[in-house]
């Protein structure tokens, strides 16, 4: 029982990942599939940040600090890179949806499978 209370951020990551995976598998509208991908990326970023926490630690900044027992800085830097790459991928996916709608006239994932002309 105490493991559930101690490891609560990791259980939150598992729940978010399950929600994102279900949306990606079961929806038919293209924009809702993109939303599912974004939720899954948020789960991965939360996992990266919560790997680097130390008990009773302060932010890893030396300006006006109150000690030197700090949280790990490397997972925060990797999460920054991951968020920016997620933004770039989402922008490109939405552009493809605009082009598919212009070409075939509908936003259903099953009906716009044939590639004509």
């Amino acid at each position, binding site marked *: 029982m105490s493991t*559930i209370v101690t490891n609560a951020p*990791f259980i939150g990551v598992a729940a978010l990942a399950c929600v994102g995976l279900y949306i990606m598998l079961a929806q038919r509208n293209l924009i809702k599939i993109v939303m599912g991908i974004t939720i899954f990326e948020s789960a991965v970023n939360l996992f990266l940040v919560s790997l680097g926490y130390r008990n009773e630690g302060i932010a890893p900044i*030396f300006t006006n600090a109150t000690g030197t027992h700090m949280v790990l*800085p*490397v997972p925060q830097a*990797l999460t920054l890179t991951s968020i920016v790459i997620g933004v770039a991928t989402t922008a490109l996916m939405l552009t493809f949806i605009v082009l598919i709608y212009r070409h075939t006239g509908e936003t259903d994932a099953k009906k716009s499978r044939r590639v004509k002309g």
Partner: protein
Amino acid sequence: MTRKVVIGLTMVIVGMMLFAVALMMRPFGEPVSVMDDYIIENTQQVTGANNAVSAVVFDWRGYDTLGEATVLFTAVTAVVMLLRKRKDEAPE
């Protein structure tokens, strides 16, 4: 009908695996930190910055930032190129 069965089975298996791993991980708050102890000790002498996260992003791991700036630049170029005005539209 069979699509719903396959989706349900996948979600049950993957969900059980994820929750089992979440309960078996290291306790939250006690990470392995050999590299980060070295970085916190030596940041102010080697890079001269007071912010450890900025020093890690731009100095200790500068190649990752170079790759990320390249990905962002390429994605913006691709979006601007794909959404141009078509030449055979009605004249405005």
